[in-house]
């Protein structure tokens, strides 16, 4: 579905991403992990062409991304921002309607089809009942759902999530991830999620991409990527990796500095 061919990107002098090559298949749930500054957010921004790589190509169903208009891209790929505050607060329904923008072009007003799509997106994300409320009155978890709904209103095939569980308590994290998994399994959406939470990535993603200083350090199933050696090498801190007793997926435990708990 998406083909990245030796893609490199820099903001000014230093390369933030170097020679990234990979293929994202339809229906995958991919986690992008790596330390601060390893290029996770940049990677997502390049996938939806908020940034354009200086070298390499991205093909979306064999069409180069750089030959598509931003509107065409927005109909296929939606990104959910970490946080987006509006200077003046809009109502929930107004924010979700903004997701229809790529379909409206120069039209000023949404039609009944747009409203229908928006209602469906709000239904899927469970925010129909708060449609008339103002964004600044909502909790962090509710705001996240509004932006997922806005992304769904774009009718995309791929949704990019940037640190979606940051700032959420564990109840809302599980709620939110359940929603993402159901969009992935039941609606066939491809998900690419950048995350700092390695346990969540291990538990929920089909495939992990581990970035280190702009390069792919390791890519594969959580069992292949989340190992003590790999994580210690990339993050430079000691961890304990065992199996989650319920799911059997790799589980990471942080170790205090100065205690040789890993037995190494």
């Amino acid at each position, binding site marked *: 579905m998406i083909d990245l061919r030796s893609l490199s990107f820099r903001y000014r002098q230093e390369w933030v991403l170097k020679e990234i090559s990979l293929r994202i298949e339809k229906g995958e749930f991919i986690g992008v992990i790596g330390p601060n500054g390893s290029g996770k957010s940049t990677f997502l*921004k390049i996938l*939806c062409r*908020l940034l354009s790589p200086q070298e390499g190509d991205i093909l979306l169903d064999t069409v180069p991304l750089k030959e598509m*208009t*931003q*509107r065409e*891209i*927005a109909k296929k790929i*939606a*990104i959910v*921002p970490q946080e*987006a*505050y*509006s*200077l*003046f*607060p*809009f*109502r929930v*329904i*107004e*924010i979700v*309607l*903004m*997701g229809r*923008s*790529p379909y*409206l072009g*120069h*039209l*000023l*007003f*949404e039609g009944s089809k747009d*409203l229908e799509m928006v*209602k469906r997106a709000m239904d899927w994300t469970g925010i129909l009942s708060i*449609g*008339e409320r*103002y964004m600044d009155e909502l909790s962090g978890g509710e705001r996240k759902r509004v932006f997922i709904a806005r992304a769904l209103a*774009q009718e995309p095939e791929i949704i990019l999530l940037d640190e979606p569980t940051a700032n959420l308590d564990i109840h809302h994290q599980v709620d939110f991830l359940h929603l993402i998994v159901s969009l992935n399994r039941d609606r066939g959406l491809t998900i690419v999620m950048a995350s700092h939470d390695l346990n969540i990535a291990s538990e929920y993603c089909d495939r992990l991409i581990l970035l280190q200083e702009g390069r792919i350090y390791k890519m594969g199933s959580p069992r292949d990527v989340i190992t003590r050696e790999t994580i210690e090498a990339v993050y430079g801190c000691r961890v304990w990796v065992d199996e989650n007793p319920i799911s059997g997926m790799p589980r990471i435990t942080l170790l205090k500095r100065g205690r040789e708990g890993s037995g190494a």
Partner: protein
Amino acid sequence: MNILTLKKVLTVSLVLTFFVILVLLFSLMVGSVRVSPGRTIQVLYQFFLGHGETEMEMERTIILSLRLPRALLAGMVGAGLSVSGAIFQALLRNPLADPYILGVSSGSAVGAILAILLGFGSLSFGLPFASFVGALLTIGVVFYFGKQEGRMHPNILLLAGVITGSFLSAIIMFFLSISQKEELHTILFWLMGDFSFANPQSVLIILPYLAGGFGVLYRRSRHLNLILSGEENAHQLGVDVERLKILSYLCASLITAASVSLCGLIGFVGLIIPHSARLLFGPDHRLLLPAASLIGASFLILCDTLARTLLSPVELPVGVITAAFGGPFFIYLLRKRKGVKTL
């Protein structure tokens, strides 16, 4: 669920237009010579339908050559400053922004003062022309310095504008300090905003800027909503953000330049009318732009009518009235916000 439709925009606009017409009629009736409502309408009717002479020559002259151009100019300037203020608030993502924040006003003041001091400031032509040129130069300078690596960044634009404005203010103060008493009075009145030079030509001069600018901005009003929650957001949803910012900057600045050059620096309108309209009708620019412009038009016509009648025969600068009445009205709206919000 309740969403914005063309019908709602038209309904609100129609109601507010009706209100503008009422205020306009009121301003034509009152003054040193009072004209009855019936006669006012009769004069207007005959004027617009091109009927010949009537017996009420004096009232006709007062209404048609003095009060009507003045009220129409006040209305257009009120509309222009309100739209321009709303745009600058969105463009700079700053609720304190107003049409003068990027120095257009100071540039046009330098032009106006030079015209007055050099003596080619015939109030109906030389002064507006010089002032407009001053404003255009400032728009160009701020635009040039406000861009970085070919992109327009809100904070850099804001800094460039504020600094250019401060520099020009220094020039204004220098000129004020060397002015003679007579010139000083003219300059000060101009700096506080003054509609007494209004004539039919000034109405025709501002009209294309207002209509053209509003048209260009309204076509992009939905995209302006997207930019309120960040440029990346708008870009991701398919908006050509750089183009939108440049067009908004130029349109809002030109509307301001045309307004200021014809009637001086009327403060406050461009700051509080957009906020008031937002409190009443929400932040959606598709409704906000027409609502703010019509509220601004009625507000400034009313303020100017008060300015020329309150202490008659002495005329107050209209800027005094806009601040004195606008401030408390705005505080009232702010306090009512919670109740109004759910409308």
